[in-house]
């Protein structure tokens, strides 16, 4: 089986293909964080005073908080004063008014990433908002969406043009007091995406945001807010990459989703930040707070994530099931190779009656990766008839990695039915042998087996994203077979 082991090893040690550095003319402020920096960010974005004050309250709260240590993650202390909190590609005053005004270097970078921004080149049915470092650089298909009353724009633009909506919902799902990284984000977030679906509207295309960290020593702190009015539907995709750097880059995003009565939000992420090299040099520290609230009856929020990048992942996309009969779902594939560490999972908070949630988590550990699932299923007293089903499976490739499962189940209503299953196993030699006996290369066999292992999650992704995710997984697994 020596050759199989070699294949598994190679699989885990594949080079990062998105690690190029683009020379984009940027406007960057010096590192460090204090009230002056927050005011500067707010001023640069021409924000109203209420938002500046909100940021300052968040900053003061953050300054009193301590970085959490409960996660199953080891990393050297982060010096928050060495990070640059604002960097944006330089552009004509007021930002590009159309895609034609976009800096050619930015466009070239996205072309290189395989994300053409020009609308005629886009796959039909996907509108893109591209965010580089801290600023949104291009949003496509806006006009077409506007005809349906859908707002899809950068967060900055939303603050300027839909201030009341932003003010009503910002921090309503993830308050700045929520946790250390959410507080930090609330103080310094620079851009992100905003999306509003009016009542009864079924958004006809996938909305997508593509995030790219480019500048050095720069933190990225984007903020996404999606509001689905009663009876509406939206499917949202998020992708991310970063250049290869020796130093670590901090990414602390916040995503808030609000689903009103009978609304449905599907949120999919393919996270491919730079994971660092084999020795653990460099890589993105990804501390993300994602949460949705099913406010209305029979509303539905589903999170799907494919996490293959980042040196550190700390992320628990959650659903607060407040509306009666609302549904929360979490589907996750997390791959940790090299020296990557992931502590990820979800929280399902059942408040309303007859609320249902499903959790499917697939963790794959290879190389020296450490993969932890951490989840909370909480059924509150009033959540009559709540149901949860959780399944957490881990696959180990190699003997230097680890898989960990920390599910918390808290039930305060006797009519709840909560079911949790977990398993950990290694990729079966007999499975690989079976495939090889039928003529497949060991590496293809591993790919097939891993894809089969992740099938329940990939099924939840929009088609072309699912194909992307499979390729990404294959590339990240290349050379880790054994």
């Amino acid at each position, binding site marked *: 089986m020596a050759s199989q082991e070699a294949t598994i090893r190679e699989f885990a040690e594949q080079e990062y293909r998105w690690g190029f550095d683009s020379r984009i003319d940027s406007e960057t402020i010096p590192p460090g964080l204090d009230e002056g920096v927050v005011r500067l960010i707010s001023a640069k974005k021409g924000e109203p005073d209420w938002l500046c004050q909100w940021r300052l309250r968040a900053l003061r709260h953050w300054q009193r908080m301590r970085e959490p240590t409960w996660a199953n993650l080891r990393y050297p202390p982060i010096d928050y004063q060495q990070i640059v909190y604002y960097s944006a590609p330089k552009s004509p005053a007021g930002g590009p008014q159309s895609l034609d005004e976009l800096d050619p270097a930015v466009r070239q970078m996205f072309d290189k990433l395989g994300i053409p921004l020009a609308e005629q080149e886009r796959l039909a049915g996907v509108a893109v908002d591209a965010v580089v470092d801290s600023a949104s650089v291009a949003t496509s298909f806006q006009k077409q969406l506007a005809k349906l009353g859908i707002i899809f724009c950068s967060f900055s633009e939303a603050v300027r043009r839909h201030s009341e909506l932003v003010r009503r919902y910002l921090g309503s799902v993830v308050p700045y007091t929520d946790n250390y990284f959410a507080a930090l984000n609330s103080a310094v977030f620079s851009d992100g995406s905003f999306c509003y679906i009016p009542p009864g509207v079924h958004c006809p295309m996938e909305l997508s945001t593509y995030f790219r960290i480019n500048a050095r020593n720069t933190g990225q702190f984007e903020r996404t807010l999606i509001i689905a009015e009663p009876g509406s539907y939206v499917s949202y995709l998020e992708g991310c990459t970063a250049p290869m750097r020796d130093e670590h880059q901090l990414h602390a995003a916040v995503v808030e989703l609000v689903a009103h009565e009978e609304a449905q939000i599907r949120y999919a992420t393919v996270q491919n930040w730079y994971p660092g090299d084999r020795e653990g040099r460099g890589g993105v520290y990804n501390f993300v707070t994602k949460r949705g609230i099913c406010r209305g009856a029979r509303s539905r929020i589903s999170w799907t994530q494919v996490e293959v990048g980042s040196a550190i992942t700390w992320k628990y996309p959650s659903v607060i099931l407040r509306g009666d009969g609302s549904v929360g779902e979490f589907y996750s594939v997390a791959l940790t190779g090299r020296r990557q560490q992931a502590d990820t999972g979800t929280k399902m908070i059942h408040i309303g009656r007859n609320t249902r949630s499903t959790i499917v988590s697939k963790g794959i550990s290879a190389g020296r990766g450490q993969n932890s699932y951490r989840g909370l299923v909480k059924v509150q007293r009033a959540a009559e008839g709540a149901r949860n089903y959780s399944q957490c499976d881990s696959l180990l490739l190699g003997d230097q990695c680890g898989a960990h499962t920390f599910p*918390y189940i808290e039930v305060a209503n006797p009519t709840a039915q909560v079911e949790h299953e977990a398993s*950990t196993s290694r990729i079966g030699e007999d499975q690989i042998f079976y495939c090889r006996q039928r003529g497949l290369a060991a590496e293809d066999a591993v790919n097939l087996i891993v894809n089969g292992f992740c099938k329940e999650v990939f099924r939840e992704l929009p088609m072309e994203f699912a194909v992307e995710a499979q390729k990404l997984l294959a590339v990240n697994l290349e050379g880790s077979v054994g």
Partner: protein
Amino acid sequence: MGTQQAGDAFLRNLDGLRGHTVASRPSWLGELRGAALGRFTRLGFPTTRQEEWRFTDLSRMLSIRFEPACGGASDGLASEAWALVHALPGPRVVLVDGHFRADLSVTAAGRGIVVDSLCRVLRDSPGLLAPHLAHYAPWREHPFVALNTGLATEGVFVQLAAGAVQEEPVHLVHLWTAAGKARVAHPRALILAEPNSRAAIVESYWGSHGSVSLTNAVTEIVVGRGAVLEHAKLQEEGDEAFHMATVQVHQQSRSSFTSHVVFLGGSLARNEINIRLEGRRCRCTLNGLYWARGRQHMDLRTRIDHAQPACASEELYKGILDERARGVFNGKIYVHRAAQQTDAKQTNRALVLSDQARVNTKPQLEIFADDVRCTHGATVGQIEPEAMFYLRSRGIAERRARQLLIWAFANDVVGRIGLAPLRTAVEQLLTAGDGLSVGPVAGRLP
């Protein structure tokens, strides 16, 4: 009162203890006690801000002024306790209010087997204890284990020589008498099963309703190469009792250890059982049942460390929560890098019968080896409507169908207890009083 202040008050009460009531000779023991108390002072009492104690708040317990227990009379003891004592005719050590009662104990045992009070062994042959006492239980990390190590005044010693077979189960009985004062005892047990020995050991804890007591127990067990040990722990203390316990088990290669934990009594009761599989090809089976009613708080923890290859562990813990009770389960399976070919299975189920009851469950897997098969399953729910309908459709009334199904839920664990007298005693405790009126087939059915 916050936990910290309560803890300080608790400690001040205990200060008087140091030095005089606690044996500090031979010198290694004195040093150990000093180190453990020093460690305890540094650790302090746990608070709900600590992950391992998040759902178990000790502040009420720590606000009570406990006094060290004096030896009590044997009258007024639970009749169930004596029923079990008489049903188990083998060797036994009886501690009443934490004090050894030679008159109630039977220390004669089979060839190569020692069953005795810890103090007597300490007096007569301390050399037996020195290489083992406090070598296993984590007194450096765990405040209650540290406290016990520092303050234990009495306990039990069981030793099975290599190849020795103890036919009758050994019974270690802990009784609290009725009293007006709040009392504390730190019973300690050391059980050494040397290679290829075989025995069954029952620890039972009993009390009286209305009397406040704190049992802070530590049991250390070594299961030698090829030895087979069955250990059962039954806790049926009074409704005002606090019970904090750690059972620490070290298994050597090819040994087999089976544990049954049944928690029915107490106001606040916690049991931690830690198994270290330190040799190859060990087998370990953990069964647990708790039934909490009223305002009882039960916290059951298990941790299995697979440190060596080719060991198998299987675990089934079940809890029944009624009225305003609170149940906490935490089960961890930790597979170390060397522990290839581990086969570990954990199942945890909670049955919630009342809308005032609450349960917190946290099964954990931490796995660092790749050639393993580990699974855990946890469910929380009420009585299944399908099962209820099935019974009713056969003519069984709703209330009784409910009782039968609760019984079935519990019996799934109780039925695994191999020692018939103990199993019968547990069945009777479960069906007594306002519990389940579902007797065995023989005649007790209405």
